[in-house]
């Protein structure tokens, strides 16, 4: 690594000691950035990966022996012989036009309809569905919907793939004497009236409904009908991931269950107590949380409006998207978090004064000094309480689900006392189904089964046989119920155990309605008739409303009629013209006038005071096991979605897996490393699961994510990961105290992208503190550089590598020559800006891009080889304030570094960076393509002609950003999992179908797999094997906009006329795209910002995608901000020494700037070049 001489920032004239490895420090902060522990420790494996342009085995087909290979391939060669030749000739293409013209359909143009998707555990997102001649292809956020405002999340983006999931189409079935038999809905409709009429005599006793949680006027109306017919039937809302603590906390504080509705855009100080509100915690209402949070962080000026940003403190058990976005992040075990917050409350309330406050403070008296063992925690508490008190009415405290009810109640009290209630946070009563306790529901079912009183259980949504607490032994109980009816999208673990397994419609297939967290009522409008297998006589599913109507003996079973009926009684009962309002709300995707239901609520201080007694003190060294929802598959419901499975997790960057996340130093203490299988025992249950070390996990905590290890999920999700529900008991649903972890031998292979496509230790992330921006952000950009040349460098660039490298002179003369046909001076010139301060790494850009650009899923085996196809990846860098060369680190794995529990100040921080193609003006990829398949166009796009590409991969070799992707196999046409060639031979050996290379997989367009191709965007080519591909700035959208602007007779494409897919999806609004020559365009302003820098601009690629440096807003009481980055940096022993003293002495320091070498190199190159030319002449 040290021998590379192209970039002065990486040149080290001293040969480094073999055992010593130093990561370059960042110029602006003096921090070290690293992406994986391998990189930090500089292991041989990491080194090897760096040296190779393509990961090992990247072009090998099989790791097996040649003989196995031939055996396997024989079959496919034979098949290829039969199928390939005739395919070349005379495609007899039929054109089937409509018989009758549908209204408003222009073939070849998308039509958008508003709809909404219910989110897990209540709430909704408002969406627009893009449809091509009746075929939905993509979902976008509904710009009118207050939750989305046009933005979306990974789950709403990925729902379109669920619609076309062939595994979903398994027909309804019934348990029979000889196993399961396929049945039709008609059979159920014949069975239901008589069966349910029996409960009329018992007033419903013996009948129970276990339903997923949602707030839906129509379902509520069906519930009320069922109740009025069978008053004693049980209606039990249940979700696997549903904390009672939040509800109970509000019950304590307000005397009634309330939902929090925060408005982060008004908050100047935000304190998160184990709440991942930008990620898995729905408290801030999904995309609305990211949007309002980043609205308070956008820096557009150094003074006045747009120059201030909010401050986020996060105290959590494992670093999350939210923790990564924080200005101060602290990793503590859950009980320590409670103690920390109790102590903080005590401090704030005592300073606030007043009788009630003083009484609560004294009830928390026992926490005084409880954080003393954490060196800096006391310091933190003091600093945060001061900050909160200074921002009364402008701060907000959010508590996560792992915390006990008393902590939630305390937070409500604190928010009220600080004057935040009604300002930054308001409250609304919880709907009936949402205020039910899931754990109480499932316990009730278990108790009813145990005493034999339950005759018929109707399960709607949900998968209790998989995700119920393990101590209830629910699957065994479930099989004892005489009649079970299960309605779900997939045939899951509960489905195959049920008497009746009924198939459900996707939300894009049938009518419904849903209420979002803020109270906005939305219709769920279907986009396509319910899908079904044509072969095999399968039948389309029905919605939950239809099932309830059948059960209740309703007059109609039609969802459309049911929704309209309930709206006439409910949301639209008072309107005069029902039809007009109904049509308006279908158009808008919401009912006008609903929503914004929050208000301030009085606090019941004496109850809060009493609850303080229930807060348990820190558990000390007792290991705490934390159960978290997976950011991708949630509780397991999305596990059959390939996009989500393959999306690298925001923090761990794992794909296709879960693991036991553990702090590296704790792992070292236990003698564990990544992939080691351990036995985790807690509450009398144990589980074998591999370990994955993550800095930023609390020392005394281990974390597992739920939703993996499905046994009955489908071709994609079955057998992926480890079922952590196996150790989750009903009294420890969020945190289990006293877990033990012991190594059992064996190891597991992970497919982790965290060190893929690494860009080594160059200045990739630039990070500043807010005061430095205020002081220097506007400084003259025309300046002398370190070599005495006049250079135009903005604030950020002054700290970038580009500032201490001489301006690059091209061997071929000026970059833009006279003979060059385009000089980038005609509008439009496309460019992009990505604000690292706003990005929280959620990955919605990746999924949106995948949906828009027909990007295939490649499977775990291919990801493990570094062949993931994502055009925009999100890199995650950990930063640590300590210099690894100064003894805090040694070069062994996970040495006691800055993460040791006692050393709070040494916490890691995290920065995420989306990396699409940079569309370099001097694109290195273009010069090496032997067939001109990638060239530049007049608008500054680095375009890629797939049909011209012959797959040499030179372009990818030469790409400094590693953003080019290669189709090693026919991913687009082969199924993931499922049947594969040679299954008879290999079936027993292949552990998981994800390990089957796509070459051997069954074709997608055979059988029901054809469905998947229906998702494809017709405006984008589906790439074949052997072709390079990459981000094109959504050139199909650019072209469509160009045509549209001409049809509308516009001179130019106006700013905001269209959005690219990643920009459109990003809820943080971190991505801006537009015409750089439009002086008024957003992107022009972003590029002109002092924070804007080009990634690796030092190599003179002139990237069109630029970044805005990450800015943190530290509390000076916790960490003094770096006000003068130059001076700060001079004190460090890094490779940027020349920033400070440019003197001789800095040259002795190890990392030396070496201008002479660069000059020598260049003259040598020039000589070589002239030699060659001379030889030619």
């Amino acid at each position: 690594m040290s021998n590379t001489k192209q970039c002065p920032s990486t040149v080290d004239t001293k040969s480094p000691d073999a055992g010593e490895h130093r990561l370059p420090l960042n110029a602006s902060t003096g921090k070290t950035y690293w992406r994986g522990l391998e990189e930090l420790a500089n292991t041989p494996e990491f080194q090897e990966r760096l040296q190779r342009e393509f990961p090992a085995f990247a072009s090998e087909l099989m790791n097996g022996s040649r003989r196995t290979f031939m055996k396997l391939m024989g079959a496919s060669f034979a098949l290829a012989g039969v199928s390939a030749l005739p395919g070349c000739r005379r495609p007899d293409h039929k054109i089937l036009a409509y018989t009758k013209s549908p209204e408003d359909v222009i073939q070849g143009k998308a039509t958008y309809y508003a709809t909404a998707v219910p989110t897990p555990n209540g709430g909704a997102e408002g969406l627009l569905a893009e449809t091509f001649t009746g075929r939905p292809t993509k979902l976008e956020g509904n710009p009118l919907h207050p939750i989305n405002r046009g933005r979306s999340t990974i789950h709403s983006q990925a729902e379109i793939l669920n619609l076309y999931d062939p595994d979903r189409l398994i027909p309804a079935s019934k348990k029979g004497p000889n196993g399961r038999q396929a049945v039709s809905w008609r059979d159920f409709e014949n069975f239901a009236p008589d069966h349910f009429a029996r409960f009329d005599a018992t007033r419903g006793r013996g009948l129970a409904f276990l339903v997923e949680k949602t707030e839906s006027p129509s379902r509520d109306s069906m519930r009320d009908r069922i109740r009025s017919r069978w008053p004693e039937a049980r209606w039990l809302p249940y979700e696997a991931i549903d904390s009672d603590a939040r509800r109970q906390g509000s019950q304590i504080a307000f005397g009634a269950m309330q939902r929090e509705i925060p408005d982060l855009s008004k908050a100047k100080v935000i304190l998160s107590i184990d709440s991942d509100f930008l990620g898995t915690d729905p408290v801030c209402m999904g995309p609305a949380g990211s949007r309002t949070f980043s609205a308070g962080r956008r820096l557009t000026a150094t003074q006045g409006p747009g120059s201030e940003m909010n401050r986020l403190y996060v105290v959590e058990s494992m670093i999350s998207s939210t923790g990564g976005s924080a200005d101060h992040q602290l990793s503590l075990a859950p009980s320590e978090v409670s103690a920390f917050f109790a102590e903080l409350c005590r401090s704030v309330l005592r300073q606030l004064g007043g009788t009630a406050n003083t009484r609560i403070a004294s009830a928390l008296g026992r926490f005084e000094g409880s954080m003393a063992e954490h060196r800096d925690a006391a310091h933190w508490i003091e600093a945060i309480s001061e900050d909160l008190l200074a921002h009364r009415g402008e701060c907000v405290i959010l508590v996560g689900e792992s915390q006990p009810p008393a902590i939630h109640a305390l937070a409500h009290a604190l928010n009220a006392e600080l004057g935040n209630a009604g300002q930054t946070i308001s409250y609304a009563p919880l709907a009936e189904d949402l205020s039910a306790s899931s754990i109480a529901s499932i316990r009730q079912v278990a108790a009813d089964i145990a005493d034999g009183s339950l005759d018929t259980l109707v399960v709607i949504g949900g998968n209790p046989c998989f995700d119920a607490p393990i101590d209830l032994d629910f699957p065994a109980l479930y099989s004892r119920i005489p009649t079970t009816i299960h309605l779900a999208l997939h045939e899951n673990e509960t489905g195959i155990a049920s008497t009746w397994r009924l198939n459900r419609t996707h939300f894009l297939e049938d009518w419904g309605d849903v209420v979002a967290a803020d109270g906005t009522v939305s219709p769920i409008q279907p986009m396509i008739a319910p899908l079904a297998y044509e072969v095999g006589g399968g039948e389309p599913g029905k919605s939950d409303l239809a099932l309830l109507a059948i059960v209740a003996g309703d007059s109609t079973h039609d969802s459309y009629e049911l929704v309209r009926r309930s709206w006439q009684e409910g949301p639209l009962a008072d309107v005069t013209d029902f039809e007009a309002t109904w049509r308006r709300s279908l158009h808008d995707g919401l009912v006008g006038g609903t929503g914004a239901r929050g208000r301030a609520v009085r606090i019941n201080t004496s109850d809060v005071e009493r609850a303080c007694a229930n807060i348990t003190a820190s558990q000390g060294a007792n290991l705490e096991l934390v159960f978290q929802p997976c950011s991708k598959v949630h509780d397991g419901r999305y596990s059959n979605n390939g996009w989500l499975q393959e999306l690298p997790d925001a923090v761990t960057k794992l794909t296709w897996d879960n693991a036991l996340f553990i702090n590296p130093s704790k792992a070292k203490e236990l003698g564990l490393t990544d992939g080691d299988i351990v036995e985790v025992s807690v509450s009398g249950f144990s589980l074998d699961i591999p370990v994955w070390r993550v800095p930023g996990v609390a020392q005394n905590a281990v974390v597992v994510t739920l939703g993996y290890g499905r046994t009955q999920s489908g071709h994609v999700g079955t057998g992926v990961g480890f079922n952590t529900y196996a150790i989750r008991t009903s009294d420890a649903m969020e945190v289990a105290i006293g877990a033990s972890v012991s190594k059992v031998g064996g190891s597991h292979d992970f497919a982790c992208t965290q060190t893929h496509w690494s860009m080594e230790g160059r200045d990739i992330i630039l990070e500043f503190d807010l005061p430095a921006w205020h002081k220097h952000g506007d400084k003259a950009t025309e300046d002398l550089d370190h070599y005495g040349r006049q250079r135009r460098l903005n604030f950020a660039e002054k700290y970038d590598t580009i500032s201490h490298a001489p301006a690059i002179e091209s061997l071929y003369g000026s970059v833009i020559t006279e003979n060059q046909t385009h000089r980038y001076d005609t509008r439009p010139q496309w460019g992009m800006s990505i604000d690292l301060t706003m990005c929280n790494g959620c990955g919605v850009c990746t999924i949106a891009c995948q949906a828009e650009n027909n990007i295939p899923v490649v499977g775990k085996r291919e990801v493990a080889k570094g062949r993931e196809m994502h055009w925009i990846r999100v890199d995650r860098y950990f930063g640590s304030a300590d210099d690894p060369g100064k003894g805090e680190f040694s070069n062994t794995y996970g040495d006691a570094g800055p993460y040791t529990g006692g050393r709070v100040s040494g916490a890691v921080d995290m920065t995420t960076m989306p990396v699409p193609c940079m569309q370099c003006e001097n694109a290195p990829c273009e010069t090496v393509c032997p067939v001109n398949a990638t060239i530049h166009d007049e608008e500054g796009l680095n375009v890629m002609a797939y049909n011209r590409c012959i797959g040499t991969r030179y372009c990818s070799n030469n790409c400094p950003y590693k953003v080019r992707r290669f189709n090693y196999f026919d991913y687009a046409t082969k199924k993931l999992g499922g049947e594969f060639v040679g299954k008879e031979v290999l079936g027993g050996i292949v552990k998981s179908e994800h390990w089957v290379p796509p070459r051997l997989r069954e074709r997608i367009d055979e059988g029901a797999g054809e469905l998947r191709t229906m998702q494809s965007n017709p405006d984008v080519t589906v790439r074949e094997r052997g072709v390079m591909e990459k981000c094109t700035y959504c050139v199909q959208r650019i072209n469509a906009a160009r045509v549209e602007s001409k049809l509308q007779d516009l001179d130019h494409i106006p700013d905001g006329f269209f959005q690219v897919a990643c920009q459109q999806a990003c809820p943080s609004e971190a991505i801006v795209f537009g015409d750089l020559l439009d002086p008024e365009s957003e992107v022009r302003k972003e590029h002109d910002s002092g924070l804007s820098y080009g990634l690796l601009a030092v190599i003179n690629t002139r990237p069109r995608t630029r970044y805005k440096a990450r800015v943190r807003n530290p509390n000076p009481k916790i960490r003094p901000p770096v006000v003068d980055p130059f001076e700060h940096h001079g004190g460090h022993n890094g490779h940027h020494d020349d920033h400070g003293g440019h003197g001789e002495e800095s040259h002795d320091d190890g990392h030396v700037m070496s201008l002479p070498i660069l000059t020598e190199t260049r003259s040598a190159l020039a000589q070589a070049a002239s030699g060659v030319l001379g030889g030619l002449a």
Partner: protein
Amino acid sequence: MSTLFPKWTNAIPQVLGAGLVFGLIAVTAGAWYWMTPAYLEVGYQPTQPIAFSHQTHAGLLGMDCRYCHTNVEDSRHANIPTTTTCMNCHTVADNLGGYLAKAVSIDGSSSSAHWDSPDLQLLRQLHAEGKPVPWRRVHKLPDYVAFPHAAHVNAGVSCYSCHKRIDQMPIVYQAESLGMGWCLECHRAPENHLVDTNDVSVTNLRDVQALLNDSSYSATMGEQLKSHLQRNPPQTCGACHY
């Protein structure tokens, strides 16, 4: 001495040589034939399920292209009309009245327009069953090419430029190669193929043909393009391939 090899073996090298040559030719010709995409062939003229005549409808009856190809000005596709579009005229034979008589009188051979012609019977049957007519596609671009009809038609590229005198074709065939070189001919010299839509409708194939064959018109167009028409056909890969 008895010969080891009979005399006829002397012919083996010649036969082998000739066989090799013919074999190579056969393989080459076969590969050429089988691997050339048919859609690049000028003159491709599949038999349609219904012998719909553009000559009769667009030519003799003078129907505008856009009566059937309704989306051509709005979308990338010039859509195939729905069956109901056909039935607008063909519902009842009597209603065709003068039109049918006119068509038959001008073109005595177009007996297919008779009420009881098998083609129209099939059309009515498909319409009654709600099934689409299985037209066979004539013009097909590969998946990796995006060709927006709307952009071209609105810019003043006539149907004639790509489809030639489709109003004279009893059965449609592919008149131009639709290859990339052919596309670029026009993108590099648009003045030879553009008409000013104020002068003539792009669907008036006869007049467009006359204009485009008039070299003085292309000179005027060249001037107009430079001065005010703002037609800049892109020549970059990304304009069509994405």
